[in-house]
């Protein structure tokens, strides 16, 4: 049954890519839920996370990574990129968004677009670092190879037509616990309660003694950290990074967040899985060059019939 194998293969690829998109999409949806901002800079933050991971790897030394040492390097990169992206996202909020809390939403959006341009430019500079992993800094704008620390061997055996590799395991091993942890934070902790309260009504939350600025800061920190995790697994999965990759990743993730119902975390994950699957199926069964058209076509269709996204609440828009 070759076609079954082929289909299963697309399913695995689609879901793994979808889970990576989901981590980025959560960052969009959290920020949107709390300050109603489409954080344009989020995709580019993700891109910088990948550059940091590569830099860390370069600093650790480009030896012959295998077995335990490779996994140790992966863990170090995950922690470094998550911390970096979390702090950077928090800093971007501080410098570019916080002063505009009372301005119109569109001014905030333009500020986010500005931040996005700056991050892209920093990515370009970063690619010019005189390190071995950046090809000595020649051709700063060129895509960079990301070392294959995680092997591409088939866990289902050499003869199986379906590829299920340690890369897929890595994706699921990182994303699932993170999403469970995040759900726990949002539903069970004081911070989570404060976040939900601020999302619902910032003024009332402040009157109840919630320090909304801190809550918003924490939201950016957590959302950014998730983007950092995503950047490392993305790089290990695809083995190439470029300073322009934030645009595509951000577009997919933001689309996923809207598709699922923006502001809703389960929605973001659902939307991301849908997009991952549609992408892989379209690449395989139709033509790659029409994939974007199909993704956005499906998005438009779904929104026409479910105007608040797949899992979005039907509540009225805030006035």
């Amino acid at each position, binding site marked *: 049954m070759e076609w079954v194998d082929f289909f299963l293969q697309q399913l695995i690829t689609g879901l793994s890519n979808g889970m990576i998109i989901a981590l980025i999409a959560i960052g969009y949806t959290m920020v949107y839920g709390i300050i109603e901002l489409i954080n344009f800079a989020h995709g580019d933050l993700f891109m910088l996370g990948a550059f940091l991971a590569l830099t860390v790897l370069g600093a650790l030394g480009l030896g012959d990574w295998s077995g335990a040492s490779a996994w140790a390097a992966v863990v170090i990169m995950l922690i470094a990129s998550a911390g970096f992206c979390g702090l950077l996202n928090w800093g971007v909020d501080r410098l570019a968004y916080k002063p505009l809390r009372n301005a119109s939403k569109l001014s905030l959006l*333009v500020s986010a677009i500005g931040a996005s341009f700056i991050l892209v430019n920093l990515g370009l500079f970063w690619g*010019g670092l005189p390190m071995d992993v950046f090809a000595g800094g020649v051709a700063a704008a060129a895509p960079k190879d990301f070392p294959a620390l995680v092997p591409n061997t088939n866990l289902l055996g050499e003869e199986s037509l379906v590829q299920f590799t340690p890369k897929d395991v890595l994706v699921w091993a990182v994303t699932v616990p993170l999403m469970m942890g995040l759900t726990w934070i949002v539903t069970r902790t004081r911070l989570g309660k404060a976040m939900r309260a601020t999302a619902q009504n910032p003024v009332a939350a402040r009157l109840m003694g919630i320090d909304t600025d801190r809550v918003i800061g924490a939201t950016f920190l957590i959302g950014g950290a998730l983007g950092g995790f995503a950047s490392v697994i993305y790089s290990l999965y695809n083995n190439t990074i470029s300073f322009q990759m934030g645009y595509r990743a951000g577009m997919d993730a*933001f689309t996923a967040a809207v598709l699922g119902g923006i502001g809703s975390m389960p929605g973001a994950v659902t939307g991301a899985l849908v997009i991952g699957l549609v992408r892989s199926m379209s690449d395989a069964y139709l033509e790659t060059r029409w994939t974007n058209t199909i993704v956005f076509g499906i998005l438009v269709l779904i929104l026409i019939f479910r105007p608040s996204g797949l899992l979005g609440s039907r509540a009225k828009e805030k006035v």
Partner: protein
Amino acid sequence: MRRLPMPILAYFAIMAALPLFMGATGLFYDAFQAIFVFSLVGLGLNVVTGFTGLLNLGMAAFMAIGAYTFAILTSDIYPFQIGFWWGILATVAIGAVAGFLLGAPTLGLSGDYLAIVTMGFGEITLDVLKNLDAVTKGTQGINPLPRPTFGSWTLELQQERGWYWLLLGFVLLAVLAVRRLERSRSGRAWLSIREDALASQCMGIPPKRTKMIAFATGSALAALGGALFAALLSSTGEPASYDFQVSILALCIVIVGGMGSVAGTLVGAVVMVGMNSLVLVKLADWAGAAGVGNASNVLASPNNWKYLIFGLALILVVRLKPDGLLPPRLEGGAS
């Protein structure tokens, strides 16, 4: 029609006189022709986003539709060849129809959902243009395109001053039309929908039809901008020249200039496009002349700082002038 307000009159007076102090060709014209084209697109987006409060992230798609419609209708590689003026008229009409077609199923969506649908429409348009290269001629673009004629006289491509005034004339027409519309029944309906959709609906304003008219107007202006840009270059250029960055530029023009302000949009176009195609280019030239423009170090090439400067400028403008450089004046209690 009421008199144009002082800032707009001053703008057109200065712009019309500027070429008299400049040479006949050069960077100045490249920059200002782009500024006028984006003024048209900005005026269109100002109707959609500024007046009606609908976020549209797909203006580039309507520019592309305009450019390719114009090219297909007028270029001598296609059978239509209806000439410059009829081509422009047809393009404006088809731009409006395209706006209607996108708006009809999607304008029920609220706020950011509409934004992403328009963004998706931009991506789809770009893909279709790339993939149908048999019709769009792929990266070559459709060319050459006809030049405008006035009686027996033809405006040639290298007569940059003529193009400058022609485009400025189109901007003036667009400003008159938009200001006329703003004060019409539709225009008042746009503003009321933006201010309070529910209340205006209660007053008997049909929300969907009002939004559709705004969308069609905006799309028609963007299509006009796209067609003129193509005519100016005598080529549609490659599909990638109508990407998301272009839509973002249009949005920045409207917001930096001042949402809902016609004069603000004109100023926004001068600032944003001027920075892109005049200031940054000049900076690169000076740095090159000073000998720091070599490519061995990424930091040394001024061109590599372009996005950083653009981004910083955006953040600073909205920080210092959150309502834009020239916000709309309060008129009779309504903004």
